[in-house]
């Protein structure tokens, strides 16, 4: 497994094309694996390519990729990076992106370790509006529901989101004012940057002429602290992702030492 980081040069038209369409970014990420053919059928329950865009400032956009093979991002550097700087560095170790082996880190994970994490996900549930109607995939829209979505999955994902000390909570012991247990203010977990993506999926040959409805997704970014409860399950989560829309930059969870994340 490899973890790769690439800084996007937001001033370039190529970068704007990629950033404006998760479909285009997905295609660009997937074509960085020479050994991975489009006709390959993915093995179910195997590590897959996951990616995420982190925007921390207006012109600071990072692309993170977790993949079974080492990627070759030359085409991304040419379209949306700094090709001249990458060529001038003349150091084969920094070809315009950084890639490091991920497996040693994954093997070191052990029960009880604590990490800061970040996850961009597509929190959804399946709802029906009235009896007898088939259920439909529906996005969670409020931070409270989005948190609930992640907290429901934490055990199966092999971690536990840490709870806040009482002094930092708005209400005592993570309950409502009527003493009902409630996750609202209970955990070291923040949801931010909720955004709605709407983009066109390119039409396949032979499809009827006319505009197809765009793909729409509601995605949100989670920042928090966790404790490893099951390293085997967490390894699976880190390499296979959480939730839906994994092709569109969702589901990649990354860990960082607790000290560095505020």
């Amino acid at each position, binding site marked *: 497994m490899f973890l790769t980081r690439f800084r996007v040069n937001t001033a370039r038209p190529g970068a704007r094309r990629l950033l404006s369409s998760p479909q285009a970014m997905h295609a660009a990420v997937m074509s960085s694996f020479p050994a991975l053919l489009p006709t390959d059928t993915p093995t179910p329950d195997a590590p897959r390519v996951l990616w995420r865009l982190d925007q921390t400032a207006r012109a600071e956009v990072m692309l*993170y990729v977790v993949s079974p093979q080492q990627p070759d991002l030359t085409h991304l550097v040419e379209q949306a990076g700094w090709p001249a700087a990458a060529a001038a560095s003349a150091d084969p170790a920094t070809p315009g992106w950084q890639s490091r082996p991920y497996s*040693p880190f994954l093997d070191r994970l052990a029960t009880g370790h604590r990490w800061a994490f970040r996850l961009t996900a597509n929190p959804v549930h399946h709802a029906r509006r009235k009896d007898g109607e088939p259920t439909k995939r529906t996005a969670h829209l409020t931070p409270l529901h989005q948190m609930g979505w992640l907290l429901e999955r934490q055990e199966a994902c092999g971690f536990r989101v840490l709870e806040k000390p009482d002094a930092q909570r708005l209400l005592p012991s993570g309950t409502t004012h009527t003493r009902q247990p409630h996750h609202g203010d209970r955990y070291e977990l923040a949801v931010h940057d909720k955004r709605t993506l709407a983009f066109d999926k390119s039409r396949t040959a032979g499809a009827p002429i006319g505009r197809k409805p765009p793909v729409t997704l509601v995605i949100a970014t989670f920042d928090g602290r966790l404790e490893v409860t099951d390293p085997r399950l967490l390894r699976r989560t880190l390499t296979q992702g959480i939730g839906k829309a994994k092709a569109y930059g969702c589901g990649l969870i990354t860990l960082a030492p607790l000290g560095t994340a505020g």
Partner: protein
Amino acid sequence: MSVLTLRLAGPLQSWGASARFTRRTTESAPTKSGVIGMLAAAAGIERGDDDRLAPLAALKFGVRIDQPGTRLRDFHTAHHGISGKSMPLSERFYLADAVFVAALEGDRTLLTTLHTALGTPVYTPFLGRRSCPPSLPIELSLHDEGALMDILRQVPWQASAWYRRQYPGRDHIELTVLREADEVEQHTADVQRDQPLSFAAEHRRHALRTRVSDPVRIPRPPARQLPRHDPFDALDEESA
């Protein structure tokens, strides 16, 4: 002396000190009667209970204008819920998008009780009028030691992000504090009739209260930033 600070922020607020009949005006900052009434409601003091209200009304009051907001006039038409008859037409004034920090100075035990009461209020707090719910938790902090003005100089600027962006680049911001006058200033200060005596439903009574305006300079808070998160920190140094 202890000081309890409150954050009064909401889409609409309305603080009447001289509102009568069908023209319900608002002051440009929260009134003492409004804030004391809200605390009394949170602590479960009934309207006619003037004895329990007296220690609250004796607290020293000051308010800092963090975001002045804009005045909004509402031409109010309403009909009686049961008979369907039209109620008197009235004009109601509100402050839209305002944020204030109110501070109360006084006895520590009383302020601790009020601080806890705001966490689990008996009657829901509102910003001057029942139709104006707060948008953020009202209780801000309880300072065990300190004077009202010193605390209002320390509490960070509570204005919303969009308002703060209109004042970029400066390291300090000057805000106005409206507080009660000292003995020396008693005769030169403005007066306002909002010192609560009784909130009895049949007859509310208010006394005159002095009001002095003071500027305070407080440092700008740093812009909110995402926590730093670099997954490479967790990995070994050697590159692939």
